[in-house]
């Protein structure tokens, strides 16, 4: 027997990255701009998606992929009720979506009939950060009642973001939440990150997000 060292030098999640690239190609072929929405459970991901659909439905058609750890269709049902196509993916207990799971979901959406695909990742601030899905932008819905220390406790998810939503700002008068402290943490992790404080309940601040998103979709189409 002879012991030999074989160099590999390959990213551990390279298989996932490869599948993510395939997802991106499929979306680009169909001119579909896509968003990966992450958040902790209860931050308001589904409410945020419903608000986005409500404000955009006159201009753009949105398809939604709902990731959940349990075989429920609660979120997908809400989207379908709002008049948009939705696909539910059950991760079978896994704490995050992986590119291969998304690949199955994408194929079930009417891609040539939608302009924007929103992916609602599993509610979790740790695991989804490590698995790229192939979407065009990554978005986090943070919320005021979760507390202002979350960037300090879950740094990795903030590092990979393209846009940050701070939901439930209508609750600011009722909870201990220091917006400056929160934003300072975000700044250390992701300098200059575009951020939209808003309330899905009252609708405050939603317009600014919608305007930004419309610009992103427009730029995406022009850049192709």
């Amino acid at each position, binding site marked *: 027997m002879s*012991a030999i060292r*074989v160099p*590999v030098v390959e990213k551990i999640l*390279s298989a996932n990255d490869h599948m993510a690239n395939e997802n991106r190609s499929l979306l680009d072929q169909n001119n579909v701009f896509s968003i990966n929405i992450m958040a902790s459970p209860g931050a308001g991901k589904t409410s945020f998606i419903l608000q986005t659909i409500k404000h955009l439905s006159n201009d753009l058609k949105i398809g939604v992929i709902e990731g959940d750890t349990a075989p429920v269709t609660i979120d997908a049902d809400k989207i379908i009720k709002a008049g948009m196509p939705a696909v539910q993916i059950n991760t079978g207990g896994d704490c995050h979506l992986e590119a291969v799971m998304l690949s199955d979901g994408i194929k079930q959406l009417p891609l040539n009939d939608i302009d924007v695909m929103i992916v609602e990742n599993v509610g979790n601030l740790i695991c989804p950060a490590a698995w790229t899905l192939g979407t065009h932008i990554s978005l986090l819905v943070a919320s005021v009642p979760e507390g202002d220390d979350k960037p300090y406790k879950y*740094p990795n998810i903030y590092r990979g973001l393209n846009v940050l939503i701070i939901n439930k700002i209508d609750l600011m008068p009722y909870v201990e939440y220091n917006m400056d402290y929160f934003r300072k943490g975000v700044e250390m992790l992701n300098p200059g990150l575009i951020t939209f404080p808003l309330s899905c309940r009252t609708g405050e601040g939603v317009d600014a997000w919608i305007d930004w998103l419309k610009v992103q979709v427009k730029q995406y189409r022009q850049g192709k």
Partner: protein
Amino acid sequence: MHELSVTESILTLALENAKKANASKVTGINLVIGQLSSIVDDSIQFYWDTISEGTICLGAKLNFNRIPALLKCQNCQNEFSIGQELAPCPVCGSYRSSILHGEEFYLDSIEIEKDQEDSK
């Protein structure tokens, strides 16, 4: 916790590369993991012992080369390391920094054995 998925990915990569090299046994797995990657070494080892059963990777030693985080201040260009907590630039106090090292997450190499007959 996503260490199981990560460990499965490591095993797949190791087996692929072992096969390419005509290995009869894999004795070592050399991983490079940055300080900023949220991975627990002990969990990976735990899952490894379970999922490598029945493969030529069973019994391979997992070696973790941990890379400390190194940041660069976007304001004054100072390079600095951080501990467990986020920190501004120790020189100018700016919060804007970029990561030079600490996000590494790859399989560097594997240690294998070959049967003498195969290597002729």
